[in-house]
């Protein structure tokens, strides 16, 4: 689940549910609002997001997960 660190937020996304390309695409789109770091493991993708502004901290990870799912939805429609 979503584990929060001091400032950065860490999300562990399972590869069986989340598409790696969509995660990468989402990270590109989130560049303006946060710094990010990705660790790709065998079965999971670890994403660390550091928001640029404090007020973004609360829902950044949740918004990111939703955004990835949204991208996956768009891909499935094409």
């Amino acid at each position: 689940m979503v584990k929060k660190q001091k400032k950065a937020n860490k999300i562990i996304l399972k590869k069986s549910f989340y598409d790696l390309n969509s995660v990468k695409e989402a990270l590109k789109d989130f560049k303006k609002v946060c710094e990010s770091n990705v660790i790709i493991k065998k079965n999971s993708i670890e994403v660390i997001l550091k928001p640029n502004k404090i007020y973004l901290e609360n829902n950044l990870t949740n918004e990111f997960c939703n955004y990835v799912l949204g991208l996956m939805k768009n891909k499935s429609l094409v």
Partner: protein
Amino acid sequence: MGEGNLKIDKKENKVLISINPSIYPLDVIYSASYVFLDKNYVFLDGDIKKRILVELKPKEKYDLKKLGGEFNNELLKYADYKKRSEQTKQVREMIIQRALFTNDPSIINEVNQEEKIDLDDKEFEDPEGIAIPWEEKYGKKTKKSK
């Protein structure tokens, strides 16, 4: 608090839905999840073979039990949709094929030529003499004199 396949966490304001993937396959779960994206935060987790967990966190205040129930309904809806779309796949393909077939000019020309061949006036054999010309049977009748 647990209720069927729902686990409600009031403190975190979220509901955890546990789904058996042998009942609802992953694509059905995705379809149901996409419906909830605009009003909730959706997170997928669990084991793809044993038990899939869907975490729903409403963006605004909402009844968590109701939310979980609505997700279950969506699952059922998409499972049914998937089943029916598989059942009617052949019919849909046939309709599309037919639509494309009827609009292909090369095929239309071929069909027209075949029809022309059939309509050629050729004498046919009538050894019994039972054939009645159409004009004679259905054509305009001459006025009978009173």
